[in-house]
């Protein structure tokens, strides 16, 4: 028996010395495919992703259409990415239904897909890093109730009809307004994440519903467009609430045009998505849903140390 143990020890020693050779850190290649590369929000996601990439030795490619509504462009970008056979794909789906197929193709090609921000109509993805969008909509509604209240009329400017965040935020917002308050949503419009269209829509809304007191822009572009319109029309009396806060919006907030914003943490989303990809690639267990926090900012607290850091990217 003792001999067997000795032999076992010997084998162990050899195995240990062999395995020490193979434990060399690998560099992974990961494609980050976002809705559009022309956006402050996605630049911030990319920044976070780059930071995590440096931390975990990951070669990151930042891909995406130049316009968010170009769903088909995103589909072809995903397909090209699959051709390149990266170790993982981190994807922000611009359309809930249309992007489901390429996600499944990627997973069939043994490429794990981590979703960031926006989901797809498939369950083949490995992990989903996002803001809790329903909650973001809900929080926004709560803030409006707190600051305006009463039986105010609300117009919602949502962004892309078939994207999951849009659907969820709208749902969270409407559910709260309809169930918990006296306020009324008079219309929900979609700006397709186009600032000019949002601006145009705001002008139209103000003509169509002169009684409207509150405009809720459910993403950066919606709120920015609305703020531009309100500035031009000098209608800072309209309560403008938004989700996300770009630097331009921060300016509007300082001026008092944008009254409240629910902040996401796109940098952290980017960071977590790459970290999750790394954990998937190194065989660690990952959570299927990872939510980042939302924060409420207004003119009073926007320059506090905590929110300053989230609103204005440090370059």
């Amino acid at each position, binding site marked *: 028996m003792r001999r067997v143990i000795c032999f076992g*020890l*010997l084998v162990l*020693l*050899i195995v240990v010395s062999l395995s020490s050779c193979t434990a*060399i850190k690998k560099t992974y290649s990961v494609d980050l495919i976002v809705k559009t590369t022309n956006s402050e929000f996605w630049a911030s996601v990319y920044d*976070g992703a780059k930071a995590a990439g440096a931390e975990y030795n990951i070669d990151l490619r930042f891909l995406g259409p130049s316009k968010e509504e170009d769903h088909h462009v995103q589909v072809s970008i995903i397909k090209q990415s699959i051709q390149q056979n990266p170790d993982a794909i981190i994807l922000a789906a611009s359309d809930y239904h249309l992007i489901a197929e390429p996600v499944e193709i990627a997973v069939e090609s043994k490429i794990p897909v981590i979703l960031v921000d926006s989901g797809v109509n498939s369950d083949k993805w490995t992990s989903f890093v996002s803001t809790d969008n329903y909650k973001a909509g809900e929080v926004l509604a709560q803030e409006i109730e707190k600051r305006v209240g009463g039986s105010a009329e609300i117009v919602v400017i949502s962004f892309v009809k078939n994207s999951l965040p849009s659907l969820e935020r709208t749902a969270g917002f409407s559910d709260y307004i309809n169930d918990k308050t006296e306020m009324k949503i008079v219309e929900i419009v979609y700006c397709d994440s186009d600032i000019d269209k949002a601006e145009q829509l705001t002008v139209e809304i103000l003509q169509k519903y002169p009684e409207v007191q509150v405009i809720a822009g459910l993403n950066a572009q919606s709120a920015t467009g609305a703020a531009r319109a309100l500035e031009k029309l000098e209608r800072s009396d309209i309560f403008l609430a938004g989700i996300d806060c770009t630097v331009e919006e921060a*300016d509007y907030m300082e001026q008092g045009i944008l009254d409240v914003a629910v902040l996401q943490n796109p940098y952290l989303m980017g*960071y977590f998505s790459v970290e999750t990809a790394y954990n998937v690639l190194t065989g660690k267990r990952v959570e299927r849903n990872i939510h980042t926090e939302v924060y409420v900012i207004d003119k009073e607290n926007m*320059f506090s140390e905590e929110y300053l850091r989230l609103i204005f990217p440090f370059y």
Partner: protein
Amino acid sequence: MVRFIHRILHRIKTMLPPNLRWNSLLVVMSFSTTFIAVVAVLMITFAMNNRFNASIDRTTEQNNTQIVDNVSDSIDSYLKEIRSVSDTISNLLINYNPEKVFNFYHLVLRDDIDTIAVFDAQGELVMKTDSRNLKENVDIKRQNWFRSVAPGSRMYMFTGPHVQRLYKGEYRWVISLSTGVEWTDGENKHQGVMLVDLNFNNIEEMCSKELGEKGYLYIIDKNGELIYHPRQQMIYAGIKDKTIPIASALDDGSEIIKRDGDRILISVKTLRNADWRIVGVSPLNGLFAYDAELRIFISLIVISVVLLIIFLSVIVSFFITSPMYRLMRLMGKVEEEKFNTYYVARGVHEVKELSFAFNQMVYKIKRLMEQIVEEQQLLRKSEMKLLQAQINPHFLYNTLDSIMWMAESGDQKNVVKMISALAQFFRLSLSGGYDTILVADELKHVENYLIIQKMRYNDQFDYEITYDEAVLQCKTLKIVLQPIVENAIIHGVANLPYKGKITINAGVRQDRLFFKVIDNGFGIRPEKLDNILEEKPTTRSGMGVYNVNKRIQLMYGAEYGLQFESQPDEGTTVSIILPLAK
């Protein structure tokens, strides 16, 4: 499962040749030497790794300390430079000469300074070095940089990073140097605050020094608040750098911190021109993370050394054990009584010695065997001679002649007595071919002989036979007494002028069986007595005595045999000493 493995092992064990069994010397030696050597190699590798790591630690520490020193020097002089810009402007400002200030500023125009502006004590803009307009609703008095120095105090203060919001649509991260300034505008003395906003261009560049493979530099203030970090936005977004609280608790210098199994070297240096501390952080991963190629190289060396050791230990063990297995095979042959085998010594010294001893042993055994064969042959030969002596024609003729004379003289009684004695004498001489007979039979044999001889020598002598009852059932070599008695008669008592006497005594002394044949004859001369058993005698009866001694010694060894004691004209005592055997 364990039983299954045991069965497999047992199967393997029985299939292997004997020198490959688990407990064979070859396997035991190979394994133990390999094991020891591997342990030694690994220990050496480990020790060397530790030494190497320690020296890497030292080098890294020296390196980092130096880099941190250099960076803090350059940041120090950078801050000093900014202060001197501020000083120059405040000096130019004393007489409120905005022209000079502009001229100076255009001389020093630099892209790391975002804004130079002077505000009065109420926070109203006095002058600016560039033409950008301030935002309308900006409330200077509420801003930290403005509040951090008293207007006109000539004090300096560097703020931490903050977003400057003087201009519309511009929100830049800057570090502000506030200086309390004074100036005289005609008769009026004014007090205010000068703002110099620095962007991070230069600081970033100065902190981008390589600090090992994964090391980095950052700046904190004395409270541990972050001034600059290469991953500033990451920290702002909520991913903490765990080294910041550690570094803020450390004094200037370097320290190795163990955290979550990682060793991190942290070097800290406090600046002279601000309450800032430069922190250099580099993970100490040691030799094996230092260089992947080196790691592979060392691992390969270790593996090849281990393989070499296994190979060598098997070779050495084989070299040592194979002559032993040859020796073992030869011993097997010796067991089969093939004594002409010998071993040609090869291999290690001890095995050579062993084989030499083995050869000696085989040679001795061979000699002994030959000796035994020789002795047996001698024994047979002397027995044959003995028998020949018994059936000596002279003795038979003389006896028969005596019988004839007795018969002629009508001495019928003595004829019967003699013939019966003769018959018994011969019967006992043969004694069924056995070498040993009962002492009782031996005594009877010699008595028959004495009866015959006494009659033949006309009662020239008397005889007496005494014995311990106990010895009668003991065994003795046959026909040891008769040749002695024959000698005693012929050389002792036969020609005595008076009547001779022969006494035979059998008993036990010192656990040995002994016979004594005592006569009162002429005795033996001392010079003859000394070597009576050594020289081969010439007479027939002398030959008989010699043969008895030889037979006893061949049978039982040199410690047994005959002893002579004799006094001339007094008589002779011959002792026959034999082992006591039932």
